């Protein structure tokens, strides 16, 4: 009796886990299929791309599509712009948000609560609201068509401050007191003692900022108008406007534009997934 029961439950578990693998595998294929298709199409001729029924494998690989990307858009300028924007924005946020987060979490001073309430209220506002005035500021500063102009407003982030404040607020007070007894001043306490302890939050902030900065379209689309000053996202959108039927070249360009972040993700996937789950919110 019990044996029969156990056997039945084992068989049930067997079917259950088979279904689990089936569902996840089908789902996984649907999720990656566009990426595989992108790779195949970027290596096909345009007439293969437009063939009916579809050509699933080009036979001879057409690496010429990638060469054509380099001829049609200033790809390396745009790659450099994307890298520069991402690095500037991430570095700016790291410095400013850790400092401010520490100030809000661990220091007592006049006006703190009201200022922090203002920072929090910014979290609720959709970012497009700021777009027109930010554009006018960047224009007045003469920073249109520059990487700094694209990155500058992103140096400051209410979300980043909030994330860093939450990280610092969880640390025990004894550490600060011990540092003070050792003769460290406020900044040294922050930099040498407290900052190294919030590693996971910092890597979450870096990951989110890099992702957002690299992938963003609307803001850089507004700020950059010259092809050589555009980041890759805008360059790709512009290429699509000009050569909308040249699909194999478009696929090659879009593959090149996503590749850096995808490689970074695959290399650091554990960290990225944890970081995003940890922050629980996108920037």
């Amino acid at each position, binding site marked *: 009796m019990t044996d029969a029961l156990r056997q039945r439950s084992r068989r049930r578990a067997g079917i259950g886990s088979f279904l689990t693998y089936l*569902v*996840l595998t089908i*789902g*996984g294929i649907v*999720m990656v299929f566009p990426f595989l*298709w992108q790779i195949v*199409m970027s290596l096909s001729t345009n007439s293969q*791309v437009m063939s*009916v*029924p579809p050509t699933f494998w080009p036979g001879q690989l057409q690496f010429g599509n990638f060469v054509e990307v380099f001829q049609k858009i200033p790809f390396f300028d745009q790659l450099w712009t994307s890298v520069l924007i991402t690095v500037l924005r991430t570095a700016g946020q790291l410095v400013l948000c850790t*400092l*401010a987060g520490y*100030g*809000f979490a661990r*220091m*007592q*001073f*006049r006006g703190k*609560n009201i200022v922090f*309430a*203002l920072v*929090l*209220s910014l979290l609720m*506002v*959709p970012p497009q*609201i*700021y*777009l*027109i005035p930010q*554009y006018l*500021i960047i224009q007045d500063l003469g920073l249109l068509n520059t990487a700094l102009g694209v990155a500058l407003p992103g*140096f*400051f982030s209410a979300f980043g*401050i909030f*994330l860093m404040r939450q990280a610092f607020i969880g640390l025990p007070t004894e550490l600060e007191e011990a540092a003070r007894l050792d003769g460290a001043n406020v900044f040294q306490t922050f930099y040498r003692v407290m900052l190294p302890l919030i590693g996971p939050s910092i890597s979450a902030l870096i990951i989110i900022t890099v*992702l957002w900065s*690299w*992938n963003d*379209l*609307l803001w850089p689309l*507004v700020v950059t108008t010259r092809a050589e000053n555009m980041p*890759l996202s805008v360059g790709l959108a512009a290429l*699509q*406007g000009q050569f909308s039927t040249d699909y194999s070249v*478009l*696929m090659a360009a*879009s*593959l090149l*534009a*996503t590749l850096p*972040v995808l490689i970074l*993700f*695959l290399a650091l*996937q554990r960290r990225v*997934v944890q970081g995003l*789950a*940890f*922050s*629980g*919110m996108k920037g």
Partner: protein
Amino acid sequence: MTRLTTVPRPAGDLRQPAAGPRAGTPVRPPRRRSRRSSQRSLWGWAFIGPAVAGLFVFYLWPLVQTAYFSFTKWGVFGGSTWAGIANYQKLLSDPAVLTSLRNTIVYTAIVLLGVPIAVVTASLINRPGLRLAKLYRVLFFMPYVAMPVAVALVWRLMFNGDFGIVNAALAVVGVEGPHWTSTPGLALVALGVVGLWASIGFNMIIISSGLASIPQELYEAAQLDGAGGIRIFFSVTVPLLAPTLFFVVVITTITAFQVFDLLFALLGAMNPAMPQTQSLIYLFYSEAFVSNDKGYAAAIALLILVVIGAVTAIQFRLQRRWANID
């Protein structure tokens, strides 16, 4: 909410007792202490000052400016004049506003269909002893990491009416597929599918960590009581996951309401179906930077702020009622 410690909760977080002397204390503190407190204030402001100044210049003041711009009319060669409520009158009578609001809501509704899918995949991936869990996680998460413009271009090719793979698959079962991205109505559905595909990975990760925080003993107790897998899912997993689910729904809604990149690349600015498919943000963009009517665009931006605020408030309300019934 155990794991999601960083969800903004303004009211609760501010109620922290401030130590040290405060303004308006009736008893005058001795002089030495007051000097120390002002030194402390100096340190405090030195830490938050740079970031707060930037937030003021690039965010807080622009918020005020946008509100002001919404009452102005912009000339072709720059310069603006007071226009009263003209932009708001236009807002109420402009059919494009209603269309884009409707499109945004429909798109958001389609993307929200991904939340139950994310719950199912997350609970499957979290099953103990599952091999390849790491691989599945990576596969599901890839669309979220990839550049929206780039993946939208791939989908545009896949949705192509003449030679796209979607219609080729439909042809296998004998259906003649439509021109997805250039037919009004269908283009919105195609956009929703892409948005759903792109959002599942993130939601799955958040739900996964919510699931991992449910105590294992509860499952064991339910099993001892003789509950089956589906029963356990609905009477243990779902109720305990409710706070995480609520968070996921709110974030997905807010994000979906701001759809722009996917739309811009999936349809293309020149697409004849764009006016019937455009989202609120797209309308804002084209008024502000294509038609150069920045006053009107500012009014649209404020409408977006109000709509998102209202939707979020309704969700919080519903959640409270739901929680009370439980």
